[in-house]
């Protein structure tokens, strides 16, 4: 009983992480009809960015010996580049998004300030929120930059080319991340922003603060996204672009702007997932490590299993995947956990190629 409950809690926490990442895949697939292979790397960048920010916030990097301040300079430079690119992008396109970019820039300056204040005064736990928001902003910019530089020139290209480009971007992020002056190849230890204590005990199962935080933050973000997609004007525009890009543009929707925003949202969610993942599993490995590649893949499998392009399906798929994986690891064989996920994937694709909750679409000429 204890084991069952413990496994349940673990799966729930892992599932919410998968869900956050899976949503990025689903959102991008919804509007662009291609699988953004680079998304899992944005997730990884999110984890590393939050590691960098957190070491800055706590004031020391436990194992790396790199001072937090140096990392701050790096992050600052990166923010500047990202803001610059975003501004340039919107200036050149003449889109009314300049304000958004400025707000993002100003917001990140404010958040850095907040972080520095937290660092000097309060407990580390408080810094989770500014760290998360900053990481989300950074990754949103990264996502938008990727979309602008790599995917936009290929908007009308065959799908295979876009797919290869996406793999190229993924490889690029992975391997640049491994360079010495970026994140390096050494595994790092995430500073414990959240105290490791159990909130309550049910039938011998400790419910840890981290797990609760992960599930609650993920749930908040998911509900916010749900509201955004199904209840707001922007969400309606997104759904319209997803339904039919051409007709949407005839209805006065700026398709490129919607795509940019979609990338920003997806990448921000991935960054949040990255931070929560790093909080839960403190050791973060090098970007090209199999763990990270696999993690992104599993999130992707979750999106496909739930029916790609379907927001609620992605969450359901993520939970299904995590439950199968964690329960399989606990009760069958811990070495085969990756196998279960891919077997599910292949089974779903064989019997319901459009996913459990997806609508099957007949291709028209």
């Amino acid at each position, binding site marked *: 009983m204890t084991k069952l409950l413990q496994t349940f809690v673990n799966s729930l926490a892992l599932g919410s992480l998968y869900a956050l990442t899976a949503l990025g895949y689903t959102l991008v697939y919804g509007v662009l009809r*291609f*699988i953004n292979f680079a998304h899992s790397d944005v997730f990884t960048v999110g984890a590393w960015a939050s590691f960098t920010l957190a070491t800055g916030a706590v004031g020391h990097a436990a194992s790396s010996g790199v001072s937090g301040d140096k990392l701050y300079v790096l992050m600052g430079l990166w923010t500047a580049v990202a803001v610059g690119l975003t501004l340039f992008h919107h200036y050149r396109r003449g889109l009314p998004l300049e304000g958004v970019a400025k707000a993002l820039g100003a917001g990140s300056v404010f958040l850095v300030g907040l972080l520095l204040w937290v660092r000097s005064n309060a407990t580390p736990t408080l810094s989770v929120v500014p760290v998360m928001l900053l990481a989300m902003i950074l990754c949103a910019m990264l996502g938008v930059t990727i979309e602008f530089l*790599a995917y936009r*020139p*290929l908007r009308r*290209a*065959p*799908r*295979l*080319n876009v*797919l*290869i*480009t996406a*793999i*190229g*971007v*993924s*490889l*690029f992020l*992975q*391997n*640049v991340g*491994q*360079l*010495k002056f970026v994140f390096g190849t050494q595994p790092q230890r995430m500073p414990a922003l959240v105290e490791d204590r159990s909130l309550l005990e049910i039938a011998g199962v400790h419910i840890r603060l981290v797990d609760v935080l992960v599930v609650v933050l993920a749930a908040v973000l998911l509900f916010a996204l749900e509201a955004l997609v199904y209840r707001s004007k922007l969400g309606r525009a997104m759904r319209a672009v997803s339904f039919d890009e051409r007709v949407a543009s005839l209805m006065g929707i700026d398709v490129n702007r919607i795509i940019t925003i979609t990338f920003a949202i997806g990448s921000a969610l991935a960054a949040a997932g990255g931070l929560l993942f790093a909080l839960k599993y403190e050791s973060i490995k090098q970007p*090209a490590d*199999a763990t990270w*590649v*696999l993690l992104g*893949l599993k999130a*992707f*499998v979750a999106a*496909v299993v739930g029916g790609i392009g379907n927001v609620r399906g992605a969450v359901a798929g993520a939970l299904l995947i995590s439950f199968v994986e964690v329960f399989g690891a606990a009760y069958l064989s811990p*070495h*085969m956990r*990756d*196998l279960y996920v*891919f*077997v599910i*994937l*292949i089974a779903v*694709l*064989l019997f319901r*190629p459009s996913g459990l909750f997806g609508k099957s679409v007949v*291709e028209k*000429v």
Partner: protein
Amino acid sequence: MTDGEKKPAGQGPRGTLAGGNPRGVTVGDPTRPLAARVGAFRPNPLVAGVRSLYPIVIGLVIALLLQTLVAPMLGPFYAKLLLDIGIAIVLAGSLNIVNGFAGQFSIGHAGFMMVGGYASALVTYYGSIKLGWLAPNAYGVDVHGGFLGSGDMLFLFSCVFAGVVAALAGLVVGLPSLRLRGDYLAIVTLGFGEIVRVLVQQTSDVIEPAKAAGASWLTAAKHLGGPLGFTGTPTYVSPTPWLENAAGEQTGHAGIFFAYAIVSVLLVACYRLKSSSKGRELLAVRENEIAAEAMGINTARAKVVAFVTAAFFAGVGGALFAHEIGVTLNPKELGFQKSIDLVIMVVLGGMGSITGVVLAAAILTLLPELFREFAEYRMPVYALALIIVMIVRPQGLFGIKELWDLGFWRRYVIPVWRKIAGGWLIPKGEGDLPAAIAKRLSTERAGGELAKAKDSPSQGARRNGS
């Protein structure tokens, strides 16, 4: 004399107009049924079969020359590189069949390679123990016999076995691909690669030679080395057959010959596939699946054919890799990264271009070795190159074209080659077709019979040249 007569056109395996009239039928006679007139152009099947083997024979000769003349000149380091290039060509060339010709994006190709590699290692390692070829040398298992001796035969058998097992795996992956396209297929192949890797990692350590003789094949198959890799595979693929140990026994094997022999078989198979109706089906599927289906192509079957063929050669490549000197077959090395390396070769070379992929495989194998100090920047640069090529030149450097389709090649290399090789050795390129048609038109317009062409000077030149 017209232009068409100057160039002895169309002396390819199909026997076009200028290639003679083997059955003595009046070809141009419009009263005869079309089928008979077309059939008259076909050479005797036996002749055609023998002719089609020419390129492979040439390939074998080149492989032998590389092994006996080029490799000693290069020295051990570069000979090893030559060997690596050969293996890379086998792998990238096989991926080209499914990615390039059929346009089915597979990113789990290393999975097939792994299946083949482990199958062949199983055969050679446990097989040579069961055959009693034990010797107390460093690798645990003796590499038996000289050039094309019993050891090499076992190795060649294991290559074929590896290919067949990998082809079966290809069938298993290809069948789901009947229902999937594009991105989904990519994921399934990726999942396949991961599944193979995980399964191999579950196996136990390799049984020592002394204990393995009594083990059954099933037991042996459960002991493939696991995460540490298959240690002790015999090194049948070494670049330097002339090396000897202190006792004067030959320790090297003619790996370059085997690798390039397989390369030549693969390239000829690819070339003939590309210009056959089956290959055209694949290209049609790649260009537009719906249109291909509307043209009556069984797209599902075409895709499975592509998968199985590609998997076969990937398995053979894996067998070469498994027996290469200095390589321990391990699941980590043949993971996602390896698949991606192969994809980069195919994409940069040009999806569907055989010579382009060969060039890309050679260059991308050489570059990291030549620029070792920049090893850190290899992957970022490759990735960037991938993105830029996709944006600037989406069809890859060569596109679907071959080396001999390029302008300078057509202008300078092919005429010289024709002069040297005459009518027998040159594969029938697409360039010959217009010439043949032009010639036919010109002879028909002149009201002349084809019999005239028999006595034309070009015919004589051809005979002298061959």
